[in-house]
C-alpha cells in the first residue's frame, strides 16, 4: 500500500493538525481583539473534521502505518462525539473568557491540538501511537488548566495536573515496556497473539500499570485525586471541556486497548475484568460519598464525574460487545449532561464575579425559573431518575453488567447511586425550597444559553429524540472491536 493511499484515511487528523498550526500563525499576527475570529476558525475546522470522519475516505475501514492507526466504526463514533464536545467547549468559553480578561487566541488553538491528540488516540492500535495521542492531548490540557495564569488557583491546578499526569504517564510507559518485553510487540494484534501462559504474569503486571495510567486519564479512583482540585482551579469553560471530550477519549481508548490487546479469546479478560471491577467500585463509592460534603459546585461536579466514570467502567467490566456499546451510550449521555450542567454553572455570575458555591443557587426558582428548571432537570438526569436520559445510561450499563454476571458490581452501583441521588437532590432542594439569594446576571450570552437549552431538551426528550439512534450507532461501533 502506497503512502498516498494511506494518507487519505488520516485526513481528519491531518486537517486538524494543519488548521491548528495555521490558526496559531494567524493568531500571532492579527490584533488580539479579533480573537473571536480564531474561535470561529477552530469551530469551522472541527466541523470540517467531523465531516471528513463521517463522509470522506476516513469513514471506511482501514489499517495503516504498520498497524499503528486504524479507521473503523468505533473510532468514527468516538471521534464524532469528541468533535462535537469540543465545539461546545469553544462555544461555552465565548463570553466567559472576555469577562475574565482571558480572551486569548491560544485557547481555541490548544483545544484544537488536544482534539487532534484525542482523535489520534482513539484511532490507535499500537501502544506507541496510544502514548503519543495521550501525551499530545494531555500537554494541551495542562496548559489549558493554567490558562488563567494570574490566578494562583489556576496555576496550582495546572501544576498538580502536570506533575501527577507525568507520574501517570510514567506508570503507563512502564506498563507498556513490560508488555513489550514479554510479547515483543507493540501493536494490539501482536500482543494478543503473543500472550500465552508463560508470560501471563508479566503481562498482567504490564496491564495493571497500563490500566492505572488510563484510569488516571478518566479520573477513576484511586487515581482520581487530581480531579477536584483541577476542576475547581481551572477556568469553568476549561473544566467543562475537561469533563467532556478527554473523558470520552480516554474511556474509548481504555476500551479499545483492553478489548483488542487483551481479548477474551486469550483468557486475559478475567485478568483485567477484576481490575476494572475494583476500579469501578472504588470510583462509584468515592464519587458517591465525597460529593456529599462538597460546597463548591465545580468540586461537586468533579466527584460526580468520578462516580460516573465508575458506572461507565461497569459496562467496560462486562467485556462484551453489549458492555462496550453501553459504555459508548453512557459516555455520550454523560457528555450531554455535563456540558449542559457547566453551561448552567457558567450562568451563575454576579456582578462581583462567578458564583461557584452550591448555596449561591438558593431560591433560584424564584429569581430565574427557567435556569432553575434546566438545572433541576440536569440534576435529576445525573442522578439517574427515569424519563431523563441519565436513567437510560445507567440502565444499559447495569443490563450489560448483569448479563455478564457481575452482580456484586451491580448491587454496589445501585447502592452508590442511591447515595449519589442525595447530593443531586440537595441541589434541587436548594434551588426550589430555600430563600432566594441575590439574582444572577442575565448576560451569559446566546452561546451558553443555547447550549444549556439544547442539552436540557435532549435530556428531557432524549428517550424519543436521540435514544433510538444512539443505541444503534453505539452497537454498530462496539461491534467493530470484536
Amino acid at each position: 500500500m502506497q503512502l498516498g493511499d494511506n494518507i487519505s484515511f488520516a485526513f481528519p487528523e491531518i486537517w486538524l493538525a494543519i488548521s491548528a498550526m495555521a490558526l496559531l500563525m494567524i493568531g500571532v499576527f492579527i490584533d488580539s481583539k479579533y480573537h473571536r475570529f480564531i474561535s470561529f476558525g477552530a469551530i469551522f475546522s472541527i466541523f470540517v473534521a467531523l465531516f471528513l470522519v463521517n463522509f470522506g475516505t476516513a469513514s471506511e475501514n482501514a489499517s495503516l502505518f504498520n498497524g499503528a492507526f486504524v479507521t473503523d466504526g468505533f473510532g468514527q463514533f468516538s471521534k464524532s462525539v469528541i468533535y462535537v464536545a469540543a465545539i461546545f467547549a469553544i462555544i461555552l468559553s465565548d463570553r466567559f473568557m472576555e469577562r475574565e480578561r482571558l480572551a486569548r487566541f491560544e485557547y481555541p488553538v490548544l483545544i484544537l491540538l488536544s482534539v487532534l491528540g484525542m482523535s489520534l488516540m482513539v484511532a490507535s492500535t499500537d501502544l506507541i501511537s496510544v502514548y503519543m495521542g495521550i501525551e499530545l492531548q494531555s500537554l494541551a490540557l495542562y496548559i489549558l488548566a493554567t490558562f488563567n495564569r494570574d490566578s494562583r488557583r489556576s496555576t496550582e491546578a495546572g501544576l498538580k495536573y502536570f506533575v501527577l499526569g507525568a507520574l501517570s504517564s510514567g506508570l503507563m510507559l512502564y506498563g507498556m515496556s513490560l508488555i513489550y518485553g514479554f510479547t515483543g510487540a507493540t501493536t494490539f494484534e501482536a500482543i494478543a497473539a503473543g500472550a500465552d501462559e508463560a508470560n501471563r504474569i508479566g503481562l498482567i503486571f504490564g496491564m495493571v500499570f497500563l490500566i492505572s495510567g488510563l484510569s488516571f486519564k478518566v479520573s477513576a479512583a484511586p487515581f482520581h485525586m487530581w480531579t477536584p482540585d483541577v476542576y475547581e482551579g481551572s477556568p469553568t469553560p476549561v473544566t467543562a471541556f475537561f469533563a467532556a471530550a478527554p473523558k470520552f477519549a480516554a474511556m474509548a481508548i481504555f476500551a479499545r486497548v483492553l478489548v483488542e490487546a487483551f481479548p477474551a479469546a486469550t483468557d486475559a479478560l478475567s485478568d483485567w475484568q477484576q481490575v476494572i471491577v475494583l476500579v469501578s467500585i472504588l470510583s462509584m463509592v468515592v464519587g458517591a460519598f465525597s460529593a456529599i460534603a462538597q460546597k463548591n459546585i465545580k468540586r461537586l461536579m468533579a466527584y460526580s464525574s468520578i462516580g460516573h466514570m465508575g458506572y461507565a467502567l461497569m459496562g467496560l467490566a462486562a467485556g462484551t460487545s453489549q458492555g462496550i456499546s453501553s459504555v459508548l451510550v453512557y459516555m455520550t449521555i454523560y457528555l450531554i449532561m455535563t456540558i449542559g450542567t457547566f453551561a448552567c454553572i457558567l450562568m451563575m455570575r454576579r456582578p462581583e464575579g462567578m458564583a461557584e458555591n452550591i448555596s449561591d443557587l438558593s431560591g433560584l426558582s424564584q429569581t430565574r425559573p427557567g435556569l432553575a428548571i434546566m438545572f433541576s432537570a440536569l440534576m435529576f438526569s445525573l442522578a439517574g431518575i427515569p424519563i431523563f436520559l441519565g436513567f437510560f445510561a445507567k440502565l444499559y450499563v447495569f443490563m450489560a453488567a448483569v448479563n455478564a454476571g457481575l452482580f456484586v458490581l451491580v448491587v454496589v452501583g445501585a447502592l452508590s447511586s442511591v447515595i449519589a441521588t442525595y447530593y443531586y437532590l440537595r441541589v434541587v432542594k436548594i434551588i426550589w425550597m430555600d430563600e432566594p439569594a441575590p439574582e444572577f446576571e442575565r448576560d451569559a450570552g446566546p452561546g451558553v444559553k443555547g447550549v444549556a437549552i439544547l442539552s436540557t431538551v435532549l435530556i428531557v426528550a432524549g428517550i424519543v429524540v436521540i435514544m433510538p439512534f444512539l443505541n444503534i450507532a453505539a452497537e454498530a461501533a462496539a461491534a467493530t472491536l470484536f
Partner: protein
Amino acid sequence: MEPFVVLLPLFGALLAMPIGRMVSARAAELTTIAFVLMACLIAWVLFFDVAVGHNARTIQLFTWIGSGNFIADWAVKLDTMSVIMLVVITSVSSLVHIYSVGYMHDDASRPRFFAYLSLFTFAMLTLVTADNFIQLFFGWEGVGLASYLLIGFYHHKKSANDAAIKAFVVNRVGDFGFALGIMAIFFIFGSVGFEEVFQAVRTDAVVTPFNAADGAPISELTVGFLGLELHALTLIGILLFIGAMGKSAQFFLHTWLPDAMEGPTPVSALIHAATMVTAGVFLVCRCSIIYENAPDAATLVTFIGATTAFFAATVGLLQDDIKKVIAYSTCSQLGYMFFAAGVGSYGAAMFHLFTHAFFKALLFLGAGSVIHAVHHEQDMKKMGGVRHILPFTYAMMIIGTIAITGVGFPFLYDIFHFPVGTAGFASKDAIIEAAYAAGTEGRTGAYYAFAMGLIAAVFTSFYSWRLIFLTFHGKSRAPDHVMKHPHFPPNWMLLPLAVLAFGALFAGMLGYKSFVGDKAASFWGNSIYIAGDAHAGGESHAVEAYAAEATPPVEGDHAETPAIASAEDPAGAAHDEAEEHTEGYGEEGEGHHFPLWVLYAPLLAMLIGFGTAFAHYMRGSDPLRPGLLREGGILYSFLKNKWYVDEVYRFLFLNPSRRLGRILWKIGDGRIIDGLGPDGLSGLAGFGSRLIVRLQSGYIYHYAFAMLVGIGVILLIVRLGGAQ
C-alpha cells in the same frame, strides 16, 4: 326504577356541594330533599309491590368483584326485609332532611351537611339491598364513614372530633369481627352470596371448607379457629354478631353511641336512632337461618341484648344531657331487638326496629326542637317549663314518650284481635311475650331476657317521663334572656314531627298482623326465618318447606293446605301451612296461652316507672333533688359514671396501648428503625464522606502516594485472584 331508590340519594350527595357553591345553600337543601323524597316514593311503591304483593326479586346490576369463586355483585335485593328497611330509611331520611332545613338554618356549611346526610342514606340503602356479604360490608363501612363525618360535623369542636374518632375506632373493633365472619363464610361455603349460603344452611348441605380433605353436613361441620375446634355456624354467628354489636352499640361496644351525640341533632335522629344503629339487628335477622342453626350463637345474642337493654336503661336514669338520655334509651331499645332475635322471634325484632324508628326519631327531633328553642342548651338541669314556649313540641314529645314506654290497652285485644295502643306497646310487648314463650320452650337465656326486658321497661318509663318532667314541667331554670327570646321552631321542623307522631301512634297497630301476627308467614316470605315449630324438630320442617321451593307445594300432606300465596311464592305457602300448627306469639286463646300476668306485666312496669318519676320530679319540692338516687350515693356514682365502662376500657386498653405505642414509637421506630435505617445510614454516609474528603488534602505527594498505593493494592488483589 329499582336501582334509583339507592342511587338517587347518591346523586343528591354528589350535587349538594356544587349546587351549594354555585347557586345557594337553599338550592342544595332542596335538591337533596327532592332526591330523597323521590327515593322515598319509590321505596313505598316497592313496599306495596314486594311485601304486600309478594313479588320478591333481586336485580343484578353488575359484577363488582369476580375472582374465581369469589363473586360479589352489585345488586338490589328486594324482599320483605329489605323493603321494610327501604321504607324506614327513606321516610325518616326525608323527614330529617326537611327538619334540618329549619334546624341548621344558621349553619355556614349546610350544603356539606346535606351532602353527608344524603351520602349516609345512599350507603344505608346499599347495605339493606345487598344480596351478598361484600356489598353489605360496603354499605356497612359507608354508613360508618358517614356517621364519622356527621358526628364530627362541628369539626371546630375538639369534643366532636374525639367523639367521631371514638365512634370510628370502636366500630373498627366490631368490623374486625364482621370481616372475619365474612372470611369464615367464604372459607366454609366458598361463596359470599346470601342465597348460596342460606340455601346451604337450610338444606343442611355437605360443604367442604378450603383446606379440608372432605366435607361434612353444615350442621355438623367444625372448623379450627384460634386453636379451637368450633362448630362452623356458631363461629360464623358469633363473628357476625361482633360486627353487629359494634354497629348497634351493644354492651361492651356501646361506648361510642352516647358520645356520638356531639353531632347535630337531626343526625342523631337519623343515624344514631332510626337507621344505622339498627344495621346490626338487620344483619342478625338477615342471617336468621344461620342463628337458628347455631343455638350457642343465638344464646350469646340473647344474653348480650338483654344485658344491654338493662344496662343502658339504668345509665339512662341519671343522664342530664337530654340527648344522652335518648341515646341510652336507643341503646336499650336495640338490646330489646337483639334479644328478640336471640330467642328466635326475628319478626318481633324487625317489628320493634320498624316502630322504634318512628318514635325514637320523633323523640330526637322533638329534643332538637327544644335544644333549638333554648339556644343550643342540652342540659336538662337548665331547662324546665318549656311546655309554655313549645306547646306543639310538648304534645309531640308526649306522644313519643307514651310510644316508647308502651302505653296500651291489653284488655282490648280480645275485641280487636290486635293490640290497641301505641307503636311501642305493640312491638315491645310482642318481644317480651316472645321471650317468655321461648322460655317456656326451654330456650337458653330466654327467661333472663324476659326478666331484663321487664326491669328495663320500668326504667325506660322512668327516664322517659323524667325527661318530660325536667324539660317541660316545673319552673324554668334557664337564664332569663333565653326564656324571653326563645327560638321558635319553623314549620320545616314541626311538619316532620307530626308525620312521625302519626307513625309512633299507629305503626304498631297497623303493622302488628303482618310483622308478628297471623299474616307474618306470608308477609315475610322467606326473607327471615319464621319461628314456626323450630324448637320441636323444626329444622327438618324448615328443610321440607324449602325443598318445596323447587317443586310446587302439592306433595304429601301439605297438599290440602289452602295456598294463600300464589305459585310464585311457594315458600310462603309452606309457611302459612306451618302457621296453622303453631300460631304466632302473643295471640291469646289461640297458640300460646300466656298467664295473664305476662300480658299485663309490661303495662304494669310502665306504670311503676311513670309513678316513680312523677313522685320524684313532680311532687318533690326541687326537681333536681329527688329522693332516691341522691347525689353522693354509691349507686348514684356507679350509674352516673355509666358503670365505669369507659374508665375500665381506659385502664385496660387505652392506657396500655398508648404506652405500647410510645414504646414502639420512641424505641421501636425512633431508635431501632430510624437509628439503624434512615438516620443510621445517612449518618454513615456523612461519616464516610468526611473520611474520604479528609484524604483529599491538596498536597501533590499525598495524591501521588495514593496512586502508588492504589497500584500496589490492585496488583496484590490481581495476584491473589490470579493465583487461583
